[in-house]
């Protein structure tokens, strides 16, 4: 019975409580509390669901991209093994300790990556070998990856031009 009375008050709350009303009845006090807390929890619980869903989608997209990249790398390795010796590790005098060079930000799209990779790696290795000879330190090219996002590839010429104008324009 009391539950029904409270339910009735909750329905009446839909019309709102008069702000100047004093004092509030017991059902109104608890009605506001229950409805308020319920709506806040419901709203944020919906956000939990939506954001979790988005998170899962992005994780699976990232996982797929990673798997594709790994598969491409494995294929490339096989192709290299079958073909002539790759230009890879540059070993100059082995007197100094080996310092890995951080990967160079090579701009390459996915479609061109497979065909141009060997040439790009050869060029990078040649530059690294020159550096090795110059300072007497042994460097090793461990990986060459296409830079993801940013750079010029992520922005259209129009956007770049707009940005340039914005930066140069002084108000």
């Amino acid at each position, binding site marked *: 019975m009391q539950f029904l009375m409270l339910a009735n008050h909750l329905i009446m*709350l839909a019309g709102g409580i008069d702000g100047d009303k004093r004092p509030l009845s017991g059902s109104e006090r608890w009605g506001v509390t229950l*409805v308020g807390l319920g709506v806040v*929890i419901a709203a944020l619980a919906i956000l939990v669901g939506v*954001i979790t869903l*988005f998170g899962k989608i992005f994780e699976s997209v990232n996982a797929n991209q990673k798997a594709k990249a790994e598969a491409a790398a494995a294929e490339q390795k096989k192709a290299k093994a079958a073909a002539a010796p790759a230009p890879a590790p540059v070993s100059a005098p082995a007197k100094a300790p080996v310092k890995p060079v951080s990967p160079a930000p090579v701009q390459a799209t996915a479609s061109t990556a497979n065909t141009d990779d060997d040439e790009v790696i050869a060029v990078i290795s040649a530059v690294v070998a020159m550096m090795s000879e110059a300072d007497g330190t042994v460097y090793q090219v461990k990986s060459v990856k296409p830079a993801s996002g940013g750079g010029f590839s992520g922005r259209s010429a129009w956007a770049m031009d707009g940005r340039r104008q914005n930066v140069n324009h002084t108000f």
Partner: protein
Amino acid sequence: MLQILQDILGGLWETSGLYGLTQHPANLLMMCISFLFMYLAIVKEFEPLLLLPISFGMFLSNLPAVLTEDMIFHAEYWNMPQSVDWLWMVLHDGGLLDKLYLGVKLQIYPCLIFLGIGTMTDFGPLIANPKSFLLGAAAQGGIFFTFVAAAYLGMSAAECGSIAIIGGADGPTSIYVSSKLLDGADSNLNTGTIALAAYTYMALVPVIQPPIMKALTTKEERAIKMPQLRTPSKTEKIIFPVVVTLVVALLVPSAASLVGMLMFGNILKESGVCSRLVDTAQNALMNIVTIFLGTSVGATCTASNVVNLDFVKVLGLGVVAFGLGTACGLLLAKLMNKLSGGKVNPLIGSAGVSAVPMAARISQKVGAETDPTNFLLMHAMGPNVAGVIGSAVAAGVLLSVINY
């Protein structure tokens, strides 16, 4: 000749501030209270960026002036029915702080502050662990249970809502709600007293929260180490503000102004293409609005508004609201810890009472007291920023349920 001199001097005396002080001695008390707040802001550094403008605004509005045209703030203007004539009167006859207070009355400043907060907030920890939203929601229990407590003290619905929102530990939200609910209401309370209580307790978060946190958790629970959070992608961070605004606006349209501006600020930041706007919102705009908001809200703390029993009730219920909010967040975090098999440190629950980033820092500090190698800060930032969204939603609910 002597009579003329006497008349002139008498007239001068009767228009002087000293004469005004003899007529309104309570103003002197208010000026002393403003000095106390200035001391707390400058020497103790309790929320100085807000407490100092508030206390100086309080000082300015309590300066004794006999002639109404000399007054820097007219408290009586803000209890009148609002109309075009009223607006003209405020603009034409009002003092400087009356004109600045229009930004509070029209709910402009709180929304602009939320824009600035959005540009400074990283929602990454919340995106990485969306369950933190629930902790932010639970901590809003402080708001609604305080509503009941205020109602039991015989307050009206508008007063209950205005006091209860202090439990959200969010200054702009408290100002936003109270300025709407108390607008023209027959009440001794006003936006200034609510804001003063809210900012005072926010400054006292390091004092109020730790005892409750220690009382409601065991040493073993406080020592729980949580796994490292994943790093959300840039795309996720850009989609997040759009999704949150959409969901909140669909469910609680009254909260759309606050949440919308918060998320607008955030998307400006996360997009990475509006660096100049972000810089302005974070610095210049935020600082200007803080000065206007602080001084004008402080100006509403006149003797008639503060020296009464209702203000004492606001102070008492404010502590209750903060304490209950902290306890609700902690208790839900304890429940989540049990359900997850001991993977959630309950201390992060107390950060659900927005107060960004102070509440998260308290979680980190109390956790580090038990185990100095335990780093809870990033885990606590999730519930902390969820608390900002939660308190804005709670504000929207109060504004929807209470007719003003």
